[in-house]
Structures are given as C-alpha cells and as structure tokens.
C-alpha cells in the first residue's frame, strides 16, 4: 500500500519567513512555507488571481502576499483575504522528527494517472 504521507526533507531546509518549491511531475507545483513561529504550510504554488508564484511572496503571520499583484492569501485555508475572492488548494502538512511530511493524495491531485 502506498503511504499516506510523503517525506520531503528536513524542516531546517526552509528559511524562516520564507518558502521553497516542490515540483510535481505531471501536476501542479507546490509551495512550502515557514512562518516566524516555525509552522509549516503548503499550498499550490499559484495565486488564484493570475497564477503568481506564491512561494516568492513575503510571508507574515499566517499569510503570504503574492509577488505579482499583492493579493494576500491565507496559508491555513488558501483563501484570498480582504476584498479579494478566490482560493488556492491547500496540501496537508505535518512535522515528524524534524521532517516535513505532506499529504500524498492532495499533493498528487490532478496528476494524470
């Protein structure tokens, strides 16, 4: 049976208040974010507005500001905040023994079988 969670490496590879990317062959790229508190979140690396690479935005609190047009996206729900409307897929993440695990099903959603 395939594992439910994928180990994508140690937490210390993520800069604080920063993000890194995780390409998925045949699927959409994932952005992994690190907040000031050391929390880790993952979203599809595409702003719901004009598909801006969210991984390149400024992270503050539990939000990221898209680098293209400053939409603010919640890292927790993937929803656009403020006046903007839209949602980006959230990929479940957990930390175990200092390693980042992401939900396989959500990560591979949309990959051609």
């Amino acid at each position, binding site marked *: 049976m395939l594992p439910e969670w994928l180990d994508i490496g140690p937490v*210390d590879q993520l*800069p*604080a208040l920063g993000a890194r990317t995780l390409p998925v062959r045949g699927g959409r790229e994932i952005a992994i974010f690190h907040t*000031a*508190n050391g*929390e880790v979140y993952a979203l599809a690396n595409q702003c719901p507005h004009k598909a801006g690479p969210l991984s*390149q*935005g400024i992270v*503050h609190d539990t939000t990221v500001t898209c*680098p293209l047009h400053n939409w603010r996206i919640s890292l927790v729900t993937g929803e656009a905040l403020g006046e903007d409307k839209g949602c980006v897929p959230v990929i479940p993440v957990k930390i175990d023994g200092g390693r980042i695990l992401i939900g396989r099903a959500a990560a591979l959603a949309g990959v051609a079988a």
Partner: protein
Amino acid sequence: MTKPHLIVVGNGMAGCRAVEEILARDPARYRITIFGAEPHVNYNRIMLSPLLAGDKAFDDIVINDLAWYADNNIDLVTSDPVVAIDRKIQTVTARSGRVESYDKLILATGSDPFIIPVPGHDLQGVVSFRDMDDVGAMLRAADAGGPDGEPGRAVVIGGGLLGLEAAHGLSLRGMKVTVLHIMPTLMERQLDEAAGWLLKAALEARGQTILTGADTAEIYGQGKVEGVRLKDGREIPAALVVMAVGIRPNVKLARAAGLAIGRGVHVDDHLVTSDANILAVGECVEHNGLVYGLVAPLWDMCRSLADALVATPSGYSGSVTSTKLKVSGIDVFSAGDFSGGEGCEDIVLRDASRGVYKRVVVKGDRVVGAVLYGDTQDGNWYFDLLKRQADVAEIRDALIFGQAFASGGAASANPNAAVAALADDAEICGCNGVSKGKVVGAITGGAVTLDAVRSCTKASASCGSCTNLVESLLAITLGDAFDGERSAPTVCKCTSFTHEDVRRLILEKQLKAIPQVMQELHWTTPDGCSSCRPALNYYLLCAWPGEFVDDNQSRFVNERMHANIQKDGTYSVVPRMWGGVTNPKELRAIADVAEKYEARMVKVTGGQRLDIFGIKKEDLPAVWADLNAAGMVSGHAYAKALRTVKTCVGSEWCRFGTQDSTGLGIKTEQMTWGSFMPHKFKIAVSGCPRNCAEATIKDFGVICVDSGYELSIGGNGGIKLRGTDFLCKVTTEQEALDYCAAFIQLYREEARYLDRTAPWVERVGLEYIKQRIVEDAAGRAALTARFHQSQVFLQDDPWAKRAAGEDYKLHQHLAEIRPAPRTLEMA
C-alpha cells in the same frame, strides 16, 4: 485473601503521582512495588534547574522521602530498571534478574533526552539535562573552570525551555555559555517571533551568547570535548556540551512487550494500553495523537488513571498546556495556540518603556492562545479564559490590559469611557509629563488635531505610545467635530506612527533591528506585514550603514532574487552597462547567456541597457556567473536603488555636444550604483540643451552647457509624467557629482519608503531642497560624506555572491515528486 499486586515501572514524577492518587482514593486496595532506574527516591525533575543554579539542594527537591514509601508499605526497588514484561504470565523482570508477578502494571517510563547523532556526540563532556547524573557532570565542569584560571566554556545545544534553563544555571555557576539554536528565534514552540527576540536580547544582556539559525556539524575533541563546529564553519570552543534539543517518549519496554505504540505508548481515555492489565501514564504515553512533555497534563492523567483503577472511571480528555519560563528574573508565559490562522485575530500590546509584550489570540469571541513577555501577571487569567472557552465579547476591547482592567465593569470596557473617567491630573504622556487636564485644555484652546496637540503640549510627540489616549481625548472633547484623520498617513495598519515618526525614532532611540522597532514603537501585529517590513528594513539600512544586517525576508521578491519577476513566474536579468556603453565582449556574453539558458527575448530598456527575459529561478546563479565572467555586474534593475544613468554621446562624437556627457554619466554611475533608496532612481546626463538623454524626466538630470552643468531634480515618466525642477547650475564635473550625491542622500534619509523623488519634492517643496543642497554648503558636504560612507558597504555585486553559492537554497526546489513508480527525489 492477598491483595492484588500493583507494579509501577518508573520512580519519577508520573509513577509516584499515580501511586499518590491511588492511595488517596483507597490506601488498602493494592500491594505496591515501584521500580526505579536511578538510585534516588522520587524527586521533582523540573527543579533540576534551580538545583543546577544553586538555588536548591537535592533534599529540597525530594517529593517523597523514604519514610513515605515505608509508611505506605510500598516496596521501592532502586537502581534496578525493569528490562522485560511477560504479558502472558504477568511478570516483570528487572536487570538484576529479579522477577515479580503483577495483577496490574503501570508504565511510567517517561522520556529520553534526544541526542543529535552528530560526530562526537559520544565524547566525554557531552551530557543531556535530564537527571541527577547530568547535573553532577555540569557542576564538575563549572568547578573545573577553564585554562589559566579563566571561566570554563560551555555550549548548550537547543534554545528551548530546557536548554535555556541549563544555560542560565551554567552562567550562574560562572561558566561562559553559548547557546546554539537551529531555529531563527528562541523557544519557537512557546513564543512568537517578537517575544523570542526580546528573550534573546535579555539573555545576551546577561552575558550569554545566543546563536540562532545555528546548525551543529560536529562536536570535536580528542577523547573529550574541545568544542563545537557549525555547518557554516564557525567553531565554538567548549569543555562541556549540553544537548537539550528535546525529549522522546521512552517506549522500549512497551514495544518489546508487544503493546500498541505510536510516538508513545497508546492509551485510551482511562490510560489503559492495548493490554487491559497494563496502564501507562506521563511522558511515555500517546493519548489521542498527542504526547506531552510538561508536568500539568501528568497530574490530569494520574487523576484519571487512579479513578480507573480504584474509583469510578472518569476518563481523560487531553490537556491544554501553558508554559512559564523558570529562568529567574525573566517573565515569559505562553498558552494554547498562538500561531493564528483563519478567523483568528491578534490583540497585541507593546509597552516599550516597561519592556512588556502581550499577545492574545482570539477566535470567534474565545481566547485560543496567549504569549506574554515582561508581565505575566495575567497569564493564569488568560489560561483560565482559554480552558473555560469563555465568551470574551463583552470585555474584548479591554482584554489585553489584563484582568483588573477588563473586569472593571462596563465603563472600562469602552476605551473612550475609561479615558473619560480619568482624573484631570492623570498622566497621559509619560515622556513629557503631560496631564489629561493639560491635553484637554489644549484641545478646547483650539488644538483640534493630533499634530496640533503634539506641537502645543508635547504629548505623544516623543515615543508616541500615548497616541491612542490623545486621540481618545480628542474624540471625547470634540465629539463629532473630531474627524479622526491624521495629516500624514501611518506606515501601515500595523502602527499608529507615520513614516517620518518611524525614521526619526529609529535614530533617536538607536533602534537597530526590525523586532526592536516593532517593540519600541508598539506595533500591533506580531511580525508586521508586507508593507511595513520592507519599509523598516530600508529605514534601518539607511540609518545604520555597515551595522544593520539586512533582512532578506523583508524584501520584495525582486530584491531577494536580484532579478525581475515576470507574469509567468520567470525572471529577467539586466547586467550593468556603465553610462549605456557596451562592447563586443559584453554583447557576446549576453548573446551566449540568452542562447544557453533559452531566454525568450532580449530587449533594450528605456534606460539604455539590455534585458534578458524568461530565465528560470534555478538558472539565475549560473546566468550571473556567466555574466560576471565577462566582467559584468548586476544592473540593480530590480531594486529600489540607482537603476541607470542614461547618456548621449556628448562632445566626444556629437556636433552639438558641449561636455563629455558619456564620461560624466559613467562617473556618476560608478559613484551611485548599489545605493539602496526609498524607490527606484534614474539619472541622465545630456551633452547639450537638445537633451537627447531625456534628462528632464529623471530623478536627477544633468544638462551640459558651454559654461558648466545645469542640475535638475524630481522628474519621472511613470503614471503621472513630471518634468524636473531646476535646482542650480555648477561649473565643474566634481561639483555636479557632489550635488548629485548630496541630493540622493537627502532623499535616502528623508523620503517615505516607496515615494519616488517627484511626490517627495512636491511634498517638501523645492525651496526646502534648495536650502539644504544649494544654500547650505556645510550641510551639502555632510550629506555627500554620509552618502559615500554608506556606499562603502552597499557597493558590492549581489550577483557575484549568489553565483559563488550564497543562499543557493533560494534557487533550488526542496525536492521533486514523481508519481509512481519513482515517487520522490531529493534536491
């Protein structure tokens, strides 16, 4: 009839507390045997810190002495850990070979310190901070001292609660302590960034060295510890290394016995394991997916366990935990979830003069988390509200001020009403000693705006923390006549300060780090936002050249990547071409790069440079390396900085040229490149009044004429086209350069972040700038000197550093997922 035999494995806090709870319910129910691995009676492990610090002796931290075991007929077996359980015949075997049979068995095996398996972790002098033996080793190291009578050096790996307590104890014992913490802030599980930063500053003030983001590569030494080497190459000499990076449940015995294990021993709501006759309690268990490393949940568990074994089963439903730092003299408290998230709102209070930071996280009128630094008096009150899930809608406005204030009735729940209730002689502004009566007097006397009150009473004019109080007084006194508007905008919604206030206070209060500015200036969010962070980063960079360490995460992506992000997420790259001049070698390098990295377009920019489009983030360092190899450096086309100096060919080629405009353009660019500014900055030098370089729509323009150089400022293309204002005329090239440097520095020091020169010049007025640059020769010279001083630190090529491997991770993927059969590849 013989009583059933209850065996407890573990003579620590959980095991003995469980026994106490059972005895309290029915002292005659069981015959009890306790096995312990250590030679001691039951002691309070959380008091190891005071023991190390010398505040307590071992006798002070004993919970139950030998008499307690005797009085309760408990058979205590010390220094003989249980090594096996036979569940079929219900026996345990100890290391000595002793076998005992049980009717009920309680596992209270606690947890083991986590030892990072770096090279050298087994050297003599590497200890954990878990039991009496560890404390003994630490005390011996402290007593031994260093060579030549110097204090001994210790490294503590781990900046969590345990590590900081160990470091504190060792400092008090006279050792020179360095704390290595892999995360960017201390105690990141309990504290947010702001509180972690304050804690770090306080510990450093006590003489400890705190290195965050410090990743241990190895512990070195011949036979015994001599020091620690970090992955970045730094070496910290030490005779003692304390590993305090965490604990993990000790499940060895349970696993060997075949019990269900997750991260800890699985237990149900009655602390029963997968075997009905075996219970488990304390740090070794996993309940409902959670493992606890604090003492409070242990008490909850022991109560439920005793209920299950003796009285009516009550059931354990998990614990909400809070943490108080036990390092004496530093008050830190945290409880619940302070990581925020959807629907959560932060209420933040920063009182710089008292060194207080408080943050309460509220979700749907319920408190879900709290972090307190400097004043933890209300910690228990917040924790109680949190545990009770109390509705705080009524007291929400006053919640952050604490229990005394918030519970003071309806009057104080409304901040305006609370201010209205103050006596006339109550102090409003602590910095300038201004009373409420004086502020109200000023308002009734005609000072109807915040600025007016500031200028006639001084209230809120210094640190500004009373600004909200003054605004309340304006609102109360003027009623509807108070429009609530301030004349200058605040930096962003995180603060009530204007850009000008922030810039002035950074200098006055000598603020040198972003968290320090946020604390001292009472920011109302924990780590700012995407508007204020880049602004603060710039203001600090400008105020403290060479001293302030740039915060990469507070820069917009273009500056973080040293390239321009484009709509498809690729980047474009502009190498510098001094004065717009190039040569075959540079052109060849650009052509090669464009081909090699499959650039989709090469375009001439408006500033006479070549822009290479469609470069992938991961290729950027290689592109820069190739361009560097041809002698080209970053064009800063992405930065809030000097972009280009546009030129015409001037007297060297042109029939009409009066001066060497190309040469002056190159000199100007070589002087000004790399200079970070509030916004992008463009310069042009035209060789004659025909103005082919379009110098009159640049931030700084030079028009060469027969008799010298006409200088003009504040122009730009952009949405609102603006031609320059004439500043002055000078006669020599050197003067043109000096005035240029002075103007840039004035702009750097006084404009608001993201203001280009045009709106800034319009706001402050041309006369003001002429007065500072043209009329005040000494002032101009000082500005020029400050500009050159900051350039010493700013003029280095960011591309070269990246091409050499700095921050390489920014350009790489973390890993790659390839759907089955090969599922994952590490970067």
